[in-house]
């Protein structure tokens, strides 16, 4: 089999890359190891309305579970600060059904002409003269060799394509947040996405994202702060017992989030990485959908050019330049803020939330948070040296 482009992984990054590359005239194959696109869900399922709009992705009622008014951030002492959608910088918007959302994106790729292959695991990349030339796939019991000019690793947190192609995607323990989430019913639902910071979730946070007659209740802990096996589940069970003693669990979601600074390199000769595989997640919020779609769009356009020119080394570097121009500064800044945040005590978090709840700001950002703290607790500012 031969294609211009093979995309490994059919999440948002993969489907978007596949669609845009197909729209730009490429012959595309998208490979997914699972038997159903979007399943199992591995996500808190919140997505920014603004982000979708800027990408030209029309909201569909089939995947919208709830329309969210804003975010509430809870301090360890139970006090909170309320952020409207605008103040949260468009970080909240819709809570979605990720399985249906992912399928919708895959259908768009299919409609643009991309072929899709399910229940197929890539187990090797084909290399010739230092160029990636395709992949070897185990597909429904059959071993296949698929040749392609460009291989796209959209294979998520557990990405193999990058590592097999000599791109370093390894993570430090400070930059990994294993997470667990229960989708629960029989609890009180609100119109806000709630975040709980402090020792409830060391180095991470707990969240409650309401959906239609259910809510995603989840928690992530920084890997370096995990003491023993099963800590994440213990923390979540404790949180749920306290918050929702009568809640019933209808789904369990496990997964891991990378919260690192931008990695050195996401492109090799004949290969590029997109989405979680390229560690493009926002390190402060752990949100990855919009960034995956932005980078997938850029990847698809750049691959389209490369296929037209039939040049797959220098031309692909354009992807590196363009996604970094769009996202790198923010990712780096939010990584610094995350690094700082993971060192703070519950007492400091209490003061920060108290300061913020009395401070009138337009849009949340590290600078605005610091201004809020300075207005109320100037003596706390020494905690944030280097961030200003």
């Amino acid at each position, binding site marked *: 089999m031969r294609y211009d482009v093979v995309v490994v992984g059919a999440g948002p990054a993969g489907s978007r890359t596949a669609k845009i590359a197909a729209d730009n005239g490429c012959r595309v194959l998208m490979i997914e190891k699972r038997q159903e696109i979007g399943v199992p869900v*591995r996500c808190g399922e919140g997505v920014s309305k603004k982000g979708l709009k800027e990408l030209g992705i029309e909201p569909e009622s089939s995947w919208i579970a709830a329309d969210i008014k804003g975010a509430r951030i809870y301090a360890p002492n139970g006090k909170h600060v309320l952020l409207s959608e605008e103040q949260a910088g468009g970080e909240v918007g819709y809570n979605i059904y990720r399985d249906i959302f992912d399928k919708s994106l895959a259908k768009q790729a299919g409609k643009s002409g991309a072929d899709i292959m399910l229940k197929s695991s890539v187990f090797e990349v084909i290399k010739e003269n230092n160029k990636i030339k395709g992949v070897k796939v185990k597909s429904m019991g059959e071993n296949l060799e698929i040749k392609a000019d460009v291989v796209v690793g959209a294979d998520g947190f557990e990405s*193999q394509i990058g590592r097999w192609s000599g791109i370093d995607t390894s993570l430090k323990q400070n930059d990994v947040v294993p997470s*667990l989430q229960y989708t629960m019913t029989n609890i009180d639902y609100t119109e806000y996405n709630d975040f709980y910071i402090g020792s409830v979730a060391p180095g991470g946070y707990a969240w409650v994202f309401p959906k239609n007659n259910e809510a995603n209740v989840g928690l992530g802990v920084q890997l370096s702060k995990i003491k023993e096996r099963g800590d994440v*589940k213990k923390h979540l069970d404790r949180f749920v017992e306290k918050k929702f003693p009568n809640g019933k669990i209808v789904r369990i*979601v496990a997964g891991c989030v990378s919260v690192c600074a931008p990695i050195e390199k996401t492109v090799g000769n004949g290969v590029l990485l997109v989405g979680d595989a390229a560690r493009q997640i926002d390190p402060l919020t752990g949100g990855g959908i919009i960034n995956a779609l932005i980078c997938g769009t850029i990847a698809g356009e750049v691959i389209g050019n490369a296929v037209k020119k039939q040049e797959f080394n220098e031309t692909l570097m354009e992807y590196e330049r363009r996604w970094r121009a769009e996202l790198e500064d923010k990712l780096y800044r939010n990584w610094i803020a995350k690094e700082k945040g993971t060192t703070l005590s519950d007492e400091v978090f209490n003061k920060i939330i108290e300061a913020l709840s009395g401070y009138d700001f337009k849009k949340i950002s590290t600078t605005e948070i610091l201004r809020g703290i300075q207005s109320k607790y100037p003596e706390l500012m020494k905690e944030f040296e280097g961030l200003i």
Partner: protein
Amino acid sequence: MKVDKTKCMYCGSCVGTCPKNAIFLEETNIVFNRELCIECGVCEKVCPVGAITAE
């Protein structure tokens, strides 16, 4: 390394975190390469549900 298949959610947390790329996820199968393992124990800690015992 031992995986308790009655607990494993096949989420890939151990796969992406393993510093030696010694763990591989097929659809609902965790494949472990003993030759690459350096016994660092990080897979045991990263598993959200505690399904892994590092030996």
